[in-house]
């Protein structure tokens, strides 16, 4: 097991100074930082290996194709998909959900049908379904959450009925850190033959994901929340569903034969990857996966759970601070409000101390409304954060209280 110093030295940005202070990066739920291995791999690919894929007979193109296909295999293995063909490369989790909503949802849904989501969804898992609901006459039905920020399982069961045709919910909440009992929920939904999409954007950077064990039909995530490059993401879909779905976008690389009389399409995954894909992104994602595999989930979870416990204890002792989201199972994300200081003021003051956090509604306005707050400050950690940094956050928050006279 690498020690803390070694891990931190592998992320060049953590050495940076911000506003004359050492950077404390607590905005990992927005995007994670990148290890040197990923940065170097992308740089090497672009310097030494760059070519377009799937269409060249020259040396570089063949090698680039191989690297791209290997990235697909690596992702398939990473989330334990049954085959590489179940992995579609997209721009990010958002595009993956839009792809499923359009290509799968549009044919499936009809007037009066219901799409189940939860009150804790990111807008990316609400709006694509609303757009499809508007086109098909279906309705988006939110499952209630508890005051602690957990899914209300009684309400979940109550909302399932014969009109439920699709379920899409978040594996781990971006705003609260709640880890949902996805496997149990999926089991229940599948027993009624309801297709399930799981939004894993916030899960993949914190825990091992096994799509076959989860039993979901679709799983989506973004590379940039997994220490890889941005503009790169993954849609996992069960092969028997993907093979029946029409294309999402048309273009090169996704066709068999094109004529003005009609065009035939390739099998998945190519059917859903029109145009030149993000080749260096795929190569970088593979390197990021290698990085976390080498570090090991057991080690990552151990570090992160001790960070979460320590931070929860520290912040709970600040009288004017209220932690929002107290689920029993959480990743190291702490959302909070303060008595007099608004989250934006908190974030500006923390920034002056070199501490990067997120303030606002976290693209989850319905969740904020449900919890009766307009915004929160969110400190989201990763395995490269350290206890000292939590102490700095604690100090800085006490300074906020002082300015605002709490």
């Amino acid at each position, binding site marked *: 097991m690498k020690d803390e110093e070694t891990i931190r030295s592998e992320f060049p940005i953590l050495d940076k100074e911000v506003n004359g202070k050492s950077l404390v990066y607590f905005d990992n739920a927005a995007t994670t930082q990148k290890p040197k291995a990923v940065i170097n791999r992308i740089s090497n690919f672009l310097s030494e290996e760059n070519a377009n894929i799937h269409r060249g007979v020259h040396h570089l193109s063949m090698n680039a194709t191989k690297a791209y296909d290997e990235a697909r295999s690596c992702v398939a293995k990473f989330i334990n998909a049954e085959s590489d063909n179940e992995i579609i490369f997209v721009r990010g989790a958002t595009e993956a959900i839009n792809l499923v909503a359009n290509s799968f949802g549009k044919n499936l849904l009809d007037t009066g049908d219901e799409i189940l989501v939860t009150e804790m969804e990111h807008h990316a898992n609400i709006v694509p379904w609303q757009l499809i609901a508007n086109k098909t006459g279906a309705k988006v039905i939110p499952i209630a959450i508890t005051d602690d920020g957990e899914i209300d399982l009684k309400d979940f069961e109550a909302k399932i009925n014969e009109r439920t045709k699709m379920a899409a919910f978040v594996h781990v909440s971006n705003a609260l850190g709640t880890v949902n009992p996805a496997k149990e929920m999926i089991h229940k939904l599948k027993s009624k033959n309801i297709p399930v999409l799981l939004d894993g954007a916030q899960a993949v950077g914190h825990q091992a994901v096994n799509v076959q064990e989860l039993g979901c039909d679709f799983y989506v995530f973004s590379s940039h929340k997994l220490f890889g490059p941005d503009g790169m993401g993954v849609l996992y879909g069960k092969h028997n569903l993907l093979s029946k779905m029409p294309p999402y976008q048309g273009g090169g690389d996704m066709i068999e034969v094109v004529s003005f009389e009609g065009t035939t399409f390739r099998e998945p995954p190519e059917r859903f990857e029109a145009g030149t894909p993000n080749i260096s992104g795929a190569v970088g994602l593979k390197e990021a996966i290698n990085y976390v595999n080498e570090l090991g989930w057991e080690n990552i979870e151990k570090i992160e759970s001790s960070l979460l416990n320590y931070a929860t204890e520290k912040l709970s002792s600040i009288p004017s601070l209220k932690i929002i989201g107290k689920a029993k199972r959480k990743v190291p994300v702490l959302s909070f409000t303060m008595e007099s200081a608004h989250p934006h003021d908190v974030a*500006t003051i923390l920034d002056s101390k070199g501490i990067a956090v997120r303030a606002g509604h976290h693209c989850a306005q319905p969740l904020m409304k449900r919890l009766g707050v307009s915004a929160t400050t969110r400190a989201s950690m990763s395995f490269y954060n350290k206890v000292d940094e939590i102490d700095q956050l604690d100090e800085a928050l006490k300074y906020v209280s002082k300015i605002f006279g709490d």
Partner: protein
Amino acid sequence: MEDLSDLYQEIILSHNKRPRNSDPLDPSTGQADGNNPLCGDKLTVHVRNTESLLEAVSCDTDGCAISRASGSIMTTMVEGKLITEVERLIEETKLLLTGEDEPEVDLVQQGDMAALIGVRKFPARIKCATLAWHALEAALRGNDEASTE
């Protein structure tokens, strides 16, 4: 990082704690909501005016200290003023907060708004300070919504 005390001056903190004219005006002749879709700040400006005079104004803000203080200060500056004068103040304030040239502090001209000049050094927060003024402009023009985007 610019000095935080430029941003969180006593005047700002006082207006944040006890915003002036924050009870929605009733009756009113016009109103506009101000929304910052990026951060979720929300406020409503109510006006009661004739063709030439802004008799009364209120600003009810759900947002950060900067947006609350700016709205509060705004109401104290424009209430009872001629519409032409209010329009001039709106333009001057926009220039004060977002103009290319660094403004001189002029307490007579700028009043409490001078305290908000510090926000210029915090680019992420300038829209917090301009939101109420955009909403006032919209309310006077008969639009019901102003957005920072």
